[in-house]
């Protein structure tokens, strides 16, 4: 009971922190702009090239996941914001004020996760829905989907959840590493570079390992079909969420004993 009261007080505090810095709002706006803007760009290019695509490619074209592909870039904006939620406190020394006000550090971390997860989920879902509707509108003359199609709603919701998950992953890395540059490097490496490197391994190792990495596992949330061997959506969700939660868990263990 005691700790619930402290947690709620900190949720309020973290909410104030999040919205009282202008760069937060910028990062959230950029996440939205990239998700929606890239969707529009990809979809219009696809429409322009449609007739040259060939019959086979036209048949396997899957418009739902395709309209959400902007997420592969916008995940960086939300992930970096997640990193900054933590590392900016260390960088400015504010972390000492935070822990002097709330010495139970796990509670602070939980409050940050809660607030940032909700904020990035809302932004993620808005971005995902907007990208979907705009994308389908652009694709409508060729091959498009509606939200009532099988799997469509799940994929669109999944896109928002993916973004929120990457945001929390960034936050967890920020707790572990404390430095902005280092945490961003690890974030970019794990969601963008690692899948490319694993690709270079001899088959079947590349496929076996690749599907467990955060982005391929998380991609099962917003893609309906996949051209590569991948996990089922259920297992994918589980594996994907293990990254943000695992990072936060490691961060929590470190936080408990580390000097602020």
């Amino acid at each position: 009971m005691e700790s619930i009261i402290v947690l709620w007080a900190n949720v309020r505090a973290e909410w104030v922190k999040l919205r009282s810095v202008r760069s937060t709002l910028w990062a959230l706006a950029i996440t939205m702009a990239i998700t929606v803007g890239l969707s529009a760009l990809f979809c219009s290019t696809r429409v322009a090239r449609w007739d040259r695509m060939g019959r086979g490619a036209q048949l396997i074209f899957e418009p739902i996941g395709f309209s959400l592909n902007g997420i592969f870039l916008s995940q960086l904006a939300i992930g970096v914001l997640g990193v900054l939620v933590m590392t900016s406190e260390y960088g400015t020394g504010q972390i000492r004020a935070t822990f002097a006000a709330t010495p139970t550090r796990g509670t602070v971390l939980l409050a940050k996760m809660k607030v940032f997860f909700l904020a990035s989920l809302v932004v993620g879902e808005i971005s995902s829905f907007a990208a979907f509707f705009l994308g389908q509108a652009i694709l409508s003359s060729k091959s498009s989907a509606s939200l009532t199609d099988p799997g469509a709603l799940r994929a669109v919701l999944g896109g928002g959840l993916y973004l929120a998950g990457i945001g929390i992953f960034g936050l967890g890395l920020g707790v572990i590493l404390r430095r902005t540059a280092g945490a961003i490097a690890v974030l970019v490496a794990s969601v963008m570079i690692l899948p490319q490197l694993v690709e270079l391994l001899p088959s079947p190792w590349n496929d076996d390992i690749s599907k467990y990495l955060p982005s391929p596992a998380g991609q099962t949330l917003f893609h309906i079909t996949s051209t590569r061997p991948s996990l089922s959506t259920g297992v994918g969700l589980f594996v994907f969420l293990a990254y943000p939660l695992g990072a936060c868990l490691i961060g929590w263990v470190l936080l408990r004993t580390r000097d602020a």
Partner: protein
Amino acid sequence: MIETTELTKRYGDKLAVDHLTMSIPSGQVTGFLGPNGAGKSTTMRMILDLDSPTSGSAKVNGRRYRDIRFPLHEVGSLLEAKSVHPARTARGHLQWLADSNRIPRKRVDEVLELVGLSAVAKKRAGGFSLGMGQRLGIAAAMLGDPQTLLLDEPVNGLDPEGIVWVRSFLRSLAAEGRTVLVSSHLMSEMALTADHLIVIGAGRLISQGSVADVVAGSSSSHVLVRTPEVSRLMSVLTAEGAEVSTDVDHALRIRKVSIERIGQLAADNAVVLHELSPQAASLEQAFMELTHDSGEYQTELKPPPPPSTTSAGGPN
């Protein structure tokens, strides 16, 4: 009441705080003195549970700091390093702090008023001068109207106006009967504001007590006697266990025997005295003498000249 027991902090092979046991009395301003690198900031961070001790413990009002549910109501702190996000406004900073400890929002405006920052409440803290930043830090410390305050070098780097302001603020805290631990590497600063002193050097406790005690405990404090019968009085006093040094003009500087006892011995032995007077060390002398063996940067601290030639301790 703040207490530390055998508090120790080691950074690698550097012993920053070395088995420090001290208690900070309630309702007083305690000056926490020591040269740079003595371990003051580290001790304060350990009291606040920001750094974990290598061994030993610190308690605030009988509890570990981390066991206080909403600590800002009980303990306010101003740390040495800035702990404010520069992109946030003064009010924004105080607002999240207030929320984290369930302090009513109206208190934010009260403390801004208290430290004279109301006019810049909506300005970003990043643009604040050192003095304004320090005021914001003090506003944050006062947010929960705490009975206990920990202030780490609050006047460091301030301009004269800021120094005067902090001093009068400290005095007002004392007048309100709050428990204040304020660190400084300047004895003179503490003499103006502190009731009680704790002196540390190289992480170890050197002296604690009232300002008068600490000064009296200094070997620069002694009794000056002038007499035409120097050698006779000297033998009487050394027999009594006194530490005596001779000076020009038939003067003796005497330590380890009280002034009353010296007067009595002189009368008993019919020694004529021309002067019998207590010589208090200055605060700075006492401090330098206490810490000159322990400072990290010893060159900054000149030990007082040897007592036999000193003219120190004259009326001051």
